[in-house]
C-alpha cells in the first residue's frame, strides 16, 4: 500500500509528460493551438441571406442556394494578403466545376469590387458582409476560411487559413470527394 502510494507520483508524472509529448509532437507537425474545430461540422449551413457586393458582381446568396450539390464557401477580404495567395487555387477549383460561394468579410464595396475585377471572380455568388455578422453565423474566426457543404446543405469540413497546393491536394480534394459520396 505504502509502496503503491510512493509510485503513484511517478506514474502520474509520466502520464502527464506523455500527454504533453503527444501535443508537442502534433504541434511540430502543424497543430495550431489557436485554431478551434468548427461548431458547425455535421450541422446545416446557416440560413443567412446575404446581399450582393455591388451591381456588377454576381451575388447575394442564402442558405438554400447551398443545397442540391456539393459546394464550397470561402471567406475573403480585399485587405487580406493570404486571400490573394490562395485565390489562384480557388479559381482552379471553380474552373473544375466546384460551385464556390464567397463571404466578403468586413470590406468596403468599392474595394471588394475592384479586387474581384483585378484578380478575377471565380465565385458563383459573393455575399457582402461589411459588419462581419454572417461570419459570426458561420463561426468564422479569421480570414481566409473555407467550408465544404454537401448536397443536403450540411457543413462537412472547415479549413482555417489559406489553401496551399499541399492543403488542396491532401485535404480539400479528398474532403470534396467525401462530401460527394
Amino acid at each position, binding site marked *: 500500500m505504502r509502496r503503491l502510494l*510512493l509510485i503513484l*507520483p*511517478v506514474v502520474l508524472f509520466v502520464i502527464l509528460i506523455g*500527454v504533453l509529448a503527444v*501535443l508537442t509532437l502534433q504541434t511540430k507537425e502543424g497543430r495550431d493551438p*489557436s485554431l478551434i*474545430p468548427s461548431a458547425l461540422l455535421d450541422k446545416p449551413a446557416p440560413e443567412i441571406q446575404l446581399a450582393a457586393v455591388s451591381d456588377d458582381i454576381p451575388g447575394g446568396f442564402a442558405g438554400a442556394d447551398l443545397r442540391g450539390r456539393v459546394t464550397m464557401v470561402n471567406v475573403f477580404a480585399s485587405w487580406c494578403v493570404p486571400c490573394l495567395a490562395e485565390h489562384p487555387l480557388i479559381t482552379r477549383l471553380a474552373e473544375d466545376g466546384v460551385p464556390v460561394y464567397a463571404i466578403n468579410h468586413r470590406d468596403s464595396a468599392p474595394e471588394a469590387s475592384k479586387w474581384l475585377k483585378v484578380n478575377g471572380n471565380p465565385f458563383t455568388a459573393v455575399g457582402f458582409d461589411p459588419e462581419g455578422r454572417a461570419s459570426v453565423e458561420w463561426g468564422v474566426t479569421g480570414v481566409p476560411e473555407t467550408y465544404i457543404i454537401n448536397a443536403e446543405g450540411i457543413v462537412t469540413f472547415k479549413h482555417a487559413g489559406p489553401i496551399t497546393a499541399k492543403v488542396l491536394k491532401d485535404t480539400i480534394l479528398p474532403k470534396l470527394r467525401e462530401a460527394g459520396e
Partner: protein
Amino acid sequence: MIAEIGQFALLLALIIAAAQVVVPMVGAARTDATLMAFGSRMAVAQAALLAAAFAALTYGFVVSDFSVSVVFQNSHSLKPMLYKVSGVWGNHEGSMLMWVLILAIFGAAVAVFGRNLPPTLKARVLSVQAMIGVAFLAFIVFTSNPFMRLDPAPFDGTGLNPLLQDPGLAFHPPLLYLGYVGFSMAFSFAVAALIEGRVDAAWGRWVRPWTLAAWVFLTGGIALGSWWAYYELGWGGWWFWDPVENASFMPWLFGTALLHSSIVVEKRDSLKSWTILLAILTFSMSLLGTFLVRSGVLTSVHAFASDPARGIFILIILLVTVGGALSLFAWRAPTIRGGGLFAPVSREGALVLNNLLLTLACATVLLGTLYPLILEAASGGASRVSVGPPYFNATFAPIMVPLVAAIAIGPLLAWKRGNLKAATVKLRIAGVAAGGAIVITFIAVPGGPILAPFAMGLAAWLAAGAMVEWGSRIKLFSAPVAESWRRLTGLPRAASGMTVAHLGLAIMIAGITGASAWRTELITTLAIGESAQAQNYSLTLQAVENGRGPNYNFERGTFLLTDRDGDTLLMYPERRFFPVAGQTTTEAAIKTTLLADLYAVIGESRSAQDAGQKWTVRFFINPMVPWLWLGAFVMVGGGLLSLSDRRHRVGAPRRKQRPVPGVSGAPAPAE
C-alpha cells in the same frame, strides 16, 4: 569577437558542468575529500564562465551588434539603454542564458557559503545542481544558441515589443527566474539527501533559507508582473489566470507549502518524506512553466516565440530530472524514518493543514491549466474547451478561505500538542476585528457583492490574528512594558518575519477583495472642454497635445478631475505610438490614494468623423488596489526579515554558546 568569446565560455561551462556532475558524486561515494573539493571549484568556475557569456551577450545588446541574430531580432539602435539591457532577457535565447546563469550562481553560492554543510551532502548537492545545469546548457547550445551570427549584418534591429519597454517589466523576468531557479536548490538538496539516505533536522535548516530566498524572489517577481499588467495594459486588470501566469503561480503555491513544511523538519524532525517530495514537486512546477512558455503547445499572451522542437527537449529534461527524482523518492523514501510525533491539534498539525490546502490549491490550478490540453489529446483534437477565470475563481477561493482562517490559529498552537481552546480565547480580539470589518464594510459599501464584506472580515481576522500571536510572544499587556520590550528585542527575526508576511497576506486579501468587488467605471467619448460624471466626480477633458518621446510619438490628454467639494486634480494619460514596431501602447494616468486608485486612459474614438475632435475616455475608480501591491511588498519584507535571521545565514559561524540541542542525527562528521 566578443560574441565568440561568449560562445566559447558557454561551451566551456557545459564541459565543466558535465565534470561537476561526476567528480563530486564519485568523491562523495568514496569519501575522497580532494574530489569533493573539486566540485566546489568547478561550481565557482561554471558560474564565472556563464557570467562571462552573459556579459558578452549584454555587450552585444549595449553596443547594438546586429550581426548577432538575437540582438537583431530583439533590439534597435534607437532604444533607450535600459531597454537595450533588458532586451538581453526579453527573448527566448537570452532568457535561457540568464536561467542557467542564475542556476550556476546558486550552485556557486552553495560551494562558497556552504562551509558548514557535511562535505558529502555538499558534494552531492553540487553534483545534482550540475545535472540540471548540463541539461539546460545542452538545451541552449543545441537548440537556442544566443550567439548565432548573421552574415551580412543588418543595419538596424527589428526592435522590441513596446509593451515590454517599461521599467517594471525590465526587472520582472530576472526576479521570476531567481525564484523559479532558486527552487532548484531545494530540489538538489532533496535529491542529494535521498542519495545520502539521511534527512534530519539539520537538513531542514540548510534547505529553509534557500527556499525562503527563492520564495521572496518569486513573490516579488509575480507581484511586479501583476503590477505591470495593471498599469500598462490600460484597463486595470491584474490577474488573468492565463496559463503562463498559472505556471508562475504553481511553483509559488508549492514553494509556500515547502517553506512551511521545512520548518517542521527543522524544528521537529518530522514530515521529512513529505518535505522531500514537496521540494521535488516545487521545482518540477518551475520546469513545467518553462516548458509551457517555450513549447508552443498552448496560446498565451506571455509565450515566447515558440518552437515544438525545444518543447521536446524540455520534456526530456523534465522526464529525466523530475521522473528520476520521483523514482529515487519512491525507492528511498521508505528508509526515511519519521521523527517527532504530534497531535492533530498542534503547530505541526496546523502546518500540515497549510500544506494540504496549498497542495490542493496547486493541484486545482494545475488541473485547470492543463485540462484543455489533456482533453484535446484524449479526444484527438475534436474537443476543445476553455478554462478561464470563472473556473479558477470558483474553485480557488473555497480552498483559500479555510487556509486563511487557519493561518491566524496555527502559530498560536504549541508544538506537539496544542490547546485549541486557549488559542480561540486569545483570538477573541481577532473575532471582534473580523465582525467589525464585516459590519463596517456592509454599512460603508452597501449593495456590493454579498461575499465581499466577509472577505474583508477574513482579512481583518488574519491581520488581527497575526498581531495577537506577535503580542503573545512578547507578552504585550500581560507583562510589564520593560519585559515586553526585552522579549521584543529578543524575538527571533524568523518569528517577526512570519508575522509580517502574514500581515502582508491580510493586506493583499483586502486589496483583492476591493479590486474585484467594488470597481467603478466610466466609458465615454469627450471633446475638449466636455465633462462626464463618475459617481460624485466630474471629469473634464481640458487639452490634448502631441509630442515626441525617445523612440515614440505620444498623444497626451489633460483631464481635470473635480470632486463634489470642488477640490481638483489633474491627470495626464498618454497614448504612445512606436513607429519601429508599428504598435500603440496606452499609458494610464494613475493617482494612488490610501483607499483607491483613480485610473484614467485616453484612446482614439472609433468613428472617423471624431478624429482629432473627440477621444474615447475610460476612467476607473479601483478601490483597495494599492493594498494589493502593498500586501505583496509587505510579504516580501517579511520574507527578507526572516531571511536575515542569524540562524538562517548559511555559513555564519555558529556562536559557541548557541549549540543546537534537541536535534537528533547530527550532521555527518567530516572525514
